């Protein structure tokens, strides 16, 4: 077959729970692979923060929703002759299958490359899947399909409780769950059937192990398994929620190879060409198995397998889709062997999910077969204990590992072990440490006793350290380090300081060794630059390069507030430095990133971003300096300590970073510069706090330094709210003060992202928020260039930025956030690092701020940027993506705490066009036909009135909650009144939402309170549970209606990024 000339690649859109950074990795590798083969690429992906949408990847990039309608239009314009569906997660797969079914692909003469659509459908449609596997005698869980709750009940009765509910075509196990009785089944099946036409009721395999294989097959039927993985958590916990170990630890040769052979048989039978994931349940009592799932596409697991083994699965899968065979492709790691082999590991990796459930008051903390985690880390080690403890530190959740986790303790340990939550691993540790036996913990948790024994080893060492003197014996210290104890953990256990432990280590010569990940366990010489550190070794695999490199710190685990945007910043920094001819050593620990592709830098350490580890790496690599300002806040936090340890910080000095980070110092600086800031104070008693709040006037923003439960920040409207929050959710004392600041209502928020050189701003881009201040900047809709900001405000912002830059001698990237009200501008925050919006403003304006910043930090001469961001003749709008559907119980509302898990940005000739495209890309559905309004307090009801009129004029059917409906009716509008959820009956708002047909819910909460279980909460939750777009901010709601009204009957313009931005 001939090579296609131009291939369309579909991305996965915004990062969301269940579909995150792993698809930036897979899409980027696919595009690179196609380029290597000389094939032109067109990419549709509205996720502007990704690497794959950067210059140097696809030939044409469309920041458009990955929906059949938009992609169909791109196809008409671009006329590709091939399409890749399996690199953009479930979003791309679903879109591609729809395009294929509707005949669009066939009519346009587009070949689906790689796995054929029929094979995809075999894996996605549960009935077909089961019968296809039955054809070759492969076992699947007993299951029945049901398209109504009654059918589901009948099926469950036949199979016997407990049963699992699953839905077809779901990302990340959405809507699935365990039902132990009929009432649970009725509830779950009802919710799941709101998303899908069909649910599956399946036998539940209690306590079975979960095991996965990553399989690759080419068109001539060569088939290999690149990696197998074992979940530490038993079946019933989504693999994305589970701690995962690669390779498997508790499988015998017979089990390993039996499951491997079945995986290969399945993949051959289905006719997969490319990459595929086969998931098993394995009975730990008999070795019996079931195939529970096959993903005929790149997945989170395949990204993990790629990073775990060094085998570039996505790149290989892309080449196989171009009809190459495994024998035609080189092993990219060894550069001496071929891609047709199975990596042999001489280490193990442990993947641990990162949850951010604390950000969501009321959310259920239990973990199950649906995903809630927002990111993950991967730790490499040569003992299980080492990898596990490293991984827990990498999460950056305040835990130093298992031992010494004094902040996490449980009252009912057994219950915590039995009922899995995001903190179960700590409960398991506590249980074993405090005397529970391995069989007892195994019985409660269904975790294989082998893992528990390893965890018990850690507890044993912690006890020995605690019983001994402040200076542990050499043997004990060696043992502790081999089991992954950090110096801080050792110090904590034996009552010493981390510095004393480090000094003792240095005296005894106890240090980690650098090992290569080479795919073949050192059997042949390999040129690999993919590295990790281990204490279970006696020899370094590599020596420092003669020429000192630059050290770049990555972002670590994706979490709410820090995700793919910082990976983009890292990758672009590294690319720039390498173009300047510098060697780059990168440190990161997140397997869903592009920065951890080993071909992106000169040396990659898949390692912790902790002070101890970074210093060990510095000692081995002797870098000329370190760049900390492109990996988000965690990297930035190390600045002062690294500088004190003698590491040269490239860019703005550590002292300046400290001055911007320390609230007191920064406030003094602003006072000195005569720059306004919202009044604030740090207080150590509740009484003082209340006094301050009354003095500056409510509302106030409350930020305790010690949070007991729930959100770390809150807005208090009055004394009683302030007291309630501080008494219930926080601890206030001189050691744990609370910071209060005046919360300014009705202010606009603008941000400046820029690059300065020795205090002079070289380039900056001003961004305006659609929502008023009070919505976290990560959740705000952002606009570039500003559309509704006064010139006077712009002038003041630029003036202040100039003074701040000079005072802090900023030398590199920075971000300043401002409040503007009545042309009064004040500063809320200043970050001396790249911000979340750097890729957005860089791509919209066509000026790569990171490239500029990297050159500045290396004191490289830079020409002034070509394009003035104010004079672009189009608009970029960034919209947040929320994952509330997956966060059961969480209140889906905007607040001072960030809640979004991702973002998109689209370009348009004007604001309205770009805004509607962006909203579509995060799941809004246009045109609007039926809208439910609950517009809150009187003033916002009045505020929304013109919008309601516009909707009526557009012929949109309006539903209103009692007050809203009465108000609008009094204004002469035709509104159908619905009842409040709590009043019950058939006409409640939530009933209307669950019944389907509502395209948009507008619910404006009365204030910033998040603690209430009100009617409003019920409405918002119904919208999230039934997948109906929801707006809770009045400014956003008005702008949506305004945009819809102005753009009625006008088709959105389909234009590539390269057509908007001509550089």
């Amino acid at each position, binding site marked *: 077959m001939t090579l296609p000339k131009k291939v369309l690649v579909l991305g996965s859109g915004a990062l969301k729970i269940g579909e995150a950074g792993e698809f930036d990795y897979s899409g980027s590798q696919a595009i690179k692979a196609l380029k290597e083969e000389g094939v032109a690429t067109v990419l549709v992906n509205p996720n502007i923060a990704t690497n794959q949408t950067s210059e140097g990847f696809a030939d044409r990039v469309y920041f458009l929703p990955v929906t059949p309608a938009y992609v169909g239009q791109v196809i008409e314009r671009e006329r590709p002759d091939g399409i890749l569906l399996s690199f953009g997660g479930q979003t791309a797969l679903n879109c591609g299958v729809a395009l294929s079914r509707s005949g669009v692909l066939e009519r346009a003469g587009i070949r689906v490359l790689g796995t054929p659509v029929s094979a995809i459908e075999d894996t996605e449609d549960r009935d077909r899947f089961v019968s296809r596997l039955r054809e070759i005698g492969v076992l699947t869980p007993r299951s029945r399909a049901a398209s109504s709750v009654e059918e589901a009940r009948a099926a469950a009765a036949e199979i016997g409780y407990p049963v699992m509910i699953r839905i077809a075509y779901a990302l990340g196990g959405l809507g699935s769950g365990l039902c132990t009785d009929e009432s649970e089944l009725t509830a779950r099946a009802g919710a799941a059937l709101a998303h899908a036409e069909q649910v599956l009721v399946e036998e539940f395999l209690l306590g079975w192990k979960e095991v996965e294989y990553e399989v690759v097959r080419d068109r*001539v039927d060569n088939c*290999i398994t690149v990696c197998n993985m074992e979940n530490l958590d038993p079946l019933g916990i989504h693999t994305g929620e589970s701690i995962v170990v690669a*390779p498997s630890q*508790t*499988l*015998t*040769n*017979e089990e*390993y*190879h039996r499951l*491997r*052979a079945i995986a*290969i048989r399945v993949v051959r039978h289905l006719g997969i060409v490319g990459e595929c994931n086969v998931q098993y349940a394995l009975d730990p*009592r*008999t*070795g019996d198995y079931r195939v529970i799932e096959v993903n005929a596409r790149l997945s989170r697991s395949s990204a993990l397998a790629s990073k775990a083994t060094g085998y570039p699965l996505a790149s290989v899968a892309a080449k196989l889709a171009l009809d190459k*065979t495994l*024998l035609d492709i080189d092993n990219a790691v060894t550069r*001496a062997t*071929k891609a*047709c*082999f*199975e*990596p*042999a*590991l*001489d280490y*193990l990796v442990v993947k641990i999910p990162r949850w951010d459930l604390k950000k969501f008051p009321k959310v259920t903390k239990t973990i199950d077969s649906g995903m809630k985690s927002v990111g993950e880390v991967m730790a490499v080690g*040569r*003992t*299980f204990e080492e990898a596990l403890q490293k991984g827990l530190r990498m999460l950056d959740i305040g835990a130093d590992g298992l031992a010494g986790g004094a902040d996490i303790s449980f009252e009912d340990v057994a219950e915590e072990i039995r009922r899995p939550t995001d903190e179960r691993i700590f409960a398991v540790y506590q249980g*074993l440490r405090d*005397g529970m*036996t*391995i069989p007892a913990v195994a019985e409660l948790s269904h975790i*294989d*006793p*082998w893992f528990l*024994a*390893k965890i*018990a*080893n850690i507890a*044993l*060492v912690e*006890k020995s350290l605690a019983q001994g003197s402040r200076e542990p*014996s050499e*043997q004990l210290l*060696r*043992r502790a380090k081999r089991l992954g104890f950090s110096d801080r953990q050792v110090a904590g256990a034996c009552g010493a300081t981390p510095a004393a432990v480090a000094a003792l280590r240095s005296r005894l010569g106890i240090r980690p060794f650098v*090992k290569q990940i080479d795919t*073949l*366990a*050192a*059997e*042949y*010489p390999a040129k690999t630059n993919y590295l990790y550190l281990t204490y*279970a*070794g*006696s*020899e370094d695999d590599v020596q420092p390069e003669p020429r000192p490199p630059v050290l770049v710190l990555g972002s670590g685990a994706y979490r709410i507030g820090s995700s793919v945007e910082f990976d983009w910043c890292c990758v672009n920094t590294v690319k720039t430095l390498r173009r300047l001819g510098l060697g780059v050593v990168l440190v990161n620990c997140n397997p869903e990133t592009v920065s951890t592709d080993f071909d992106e830098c000169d040396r990659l350490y898949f390692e912790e971003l902790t002070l101890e580890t970074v210093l060990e790496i510095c000692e081995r690599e002797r870098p000329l300096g370190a760049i900390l300002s492109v990996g988000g806040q965690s990297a930035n936090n190390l600045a002062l300590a690294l500088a004190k340890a003698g590491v040269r910080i490239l860019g703005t000095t550590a002292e300046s970073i400290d001055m911007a980070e320390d609230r007191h110092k920064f406030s003094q600086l602003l006072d000195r510069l005569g720059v306004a800031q919202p009044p604030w104070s740090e207080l150590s008693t509740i009484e003082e706090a209340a006094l301050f709040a009354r003095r500056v006037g409510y509302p106030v923003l409350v930020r305790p330094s010690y949070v007991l439960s729930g959100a770390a920040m809150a807005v208090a409207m009055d004394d009683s709210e302030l007291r309630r929050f501080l008494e219930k959710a926080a601890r206030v004392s001189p050691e744990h003060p609370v910071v209060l600041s005046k919360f300014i209502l009705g202010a606009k928020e603008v941000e400046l992202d820029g690059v300065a050189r020795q205090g002079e701003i070289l380039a900056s881009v001003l961004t305006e928020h659609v929502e008023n201040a009070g919505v976290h900047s990560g959740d705000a809709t952002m606009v570039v260039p500003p559309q509704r900001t006064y010139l006077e405000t712009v002038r003041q912002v630029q003036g202040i930025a100039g003074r701040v830059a000079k005072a802090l001698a900023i030398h590199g990237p920075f971000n300043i956030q401002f409040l503007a009200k009545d042309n009064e501008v004040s500063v809320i925050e200043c970050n001396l690092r790249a911000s979340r919006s750097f890729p957005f403003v860089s791509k919209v304006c066509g000026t790569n701020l990171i490239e500029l910043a990297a050159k500045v930090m290396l004191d490289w001469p830079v020409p002034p940027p070509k394009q003035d961001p104010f004079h672009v003749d189009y608009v970029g709008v960034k919209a947040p993506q929320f994952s509330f559907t997956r966060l059961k119980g969480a209140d889906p509302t905007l607040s001072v705490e960030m809640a979004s898990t991702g973002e998109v940005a689209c370009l348009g000739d004007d604001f309205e066009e770009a805004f509607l495209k962006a909203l579509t890309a995060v799941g809004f559905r246009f045109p609007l036909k039926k809208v439910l309004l609950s517009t809150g307090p009187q003033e916002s009801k009045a505020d929304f009135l013109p919008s309601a009129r516009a909707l009526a004029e557009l012929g949109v059917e309006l539903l209103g909650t009692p007050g809203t409906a009465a108000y609008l009716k009094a204004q002469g509008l035709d509104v159908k009144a619905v009842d409040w959820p709590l009043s019950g009956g058939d006409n409640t708002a939530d009933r209307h939402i669950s019944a389907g047909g509502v395209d948009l819910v507008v619910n404006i909460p009365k204030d910033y309170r998040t603690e209430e279980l009100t009617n409003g909460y019920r409405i918002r939750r119904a919208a999230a549970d039934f997948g109906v777009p929801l707006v809770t901010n009045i400014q956003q709601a008005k702008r949506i209606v305004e945009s819809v009204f102005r753009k009625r009957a006008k088709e959105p313009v389909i234009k590539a990024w390269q057509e908007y931005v001509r550089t």
Partner: protein
Amino acid sequence: MRRETLERPCPGALPSQGRALSPEPPFDAPDAYLVLEDGTSFQGRSFGARRPSCGEVVFNTGMVGYPESFTDPSYRGQILALTYPLIGNYGVPAEFAAELSTFYESGRIHLEGLVVSEYSQYHHHWTAARGLSDLLVEAEVPGIEGIDTRALTKHLRSRGPMAGVITDKPSASVVLPPRHLVSEVSVSEVKSYGDGPKTVALVDCGCKNTIIRSLLSRKTRVLRVPWDFDASALDADGFLFSNGPGDPLDCKATIDNAKKALATGKPVFGICLGNQILALADGGRTYKLKFGHRGQNQPCRLEGTQRCFITSQNHGYAVDTERLPDGWEPWFTNLNDGTNEGLRHRSKPYMSVQFHPEAMPGPVDTGHLFDEFTALL
């Protein structure tokens, strides 16, 4: 071989299974060493039997399958280092020493010693009958843990295979006594298995159980004969020359008998050492590989096709394809280093492979070769 016992007594018994919180031993100082013939010394801790031992030090990169590997007669006389760092996790199954055990490849542990990074004192698996260390104690095989097996592997890779000793002293002289390994592992008399309609004469140079079971499951009767037995005299429908330890040139009697077997014109199959024996029998040559193949991930290309199979391997010698005997052609070739992985005769029913189609441990992707052979009978 000379076997001396250690002067000092063994330490106290290891902690047993199921204790609440001490699955691993106390934090002992190093008490065992692996010393190589070039003087390189690695320090670690002893497990398994406590006795000094010596042998050729080799490595294997497989990540599972230690009970199968340790009982594979091809490892006779060798000290085996495992590159996968965690060993012993699932214990060892029952039926050790049972005839044709399904869990073990022979009734003995053939290793002279075992070298690992971490031995897991705690094991758990539904098939486990006891811990690996207990089995090693029974079989009088010493183990050493706490070794950087990656560093050791790189050393062996760059310097070539060499002899080594496991001892309780940091230095030692390393002298390997001469041994005829194949005669140590072969059966001493003819044994018959099964009652299938076709009979295969299996020349046992160190045959693995799974080879026999692979034949039996294909409805054959197997006559297992000693390594130096002239099988051509038997009334067999075909011959199989098995795997085995060491240098094929040490098996002169087998090579001579293989000539006779080939002369019968009946189907002949060779596996691993058997591949080399058949090549030598018809006038070919073998040589010692710089890097032996020991792992479960070796890609072998079927000559003349784009098809490639992942195979299990364990050999240090290879057939020289530059000087193949007349009538023979390469069948499989290693994709990594281009060495020979199998031969077949252009016109006669003779075929042989360098890898292990019976797997155990390792991938079972080439099991169909037994079908091909038995179909010829």
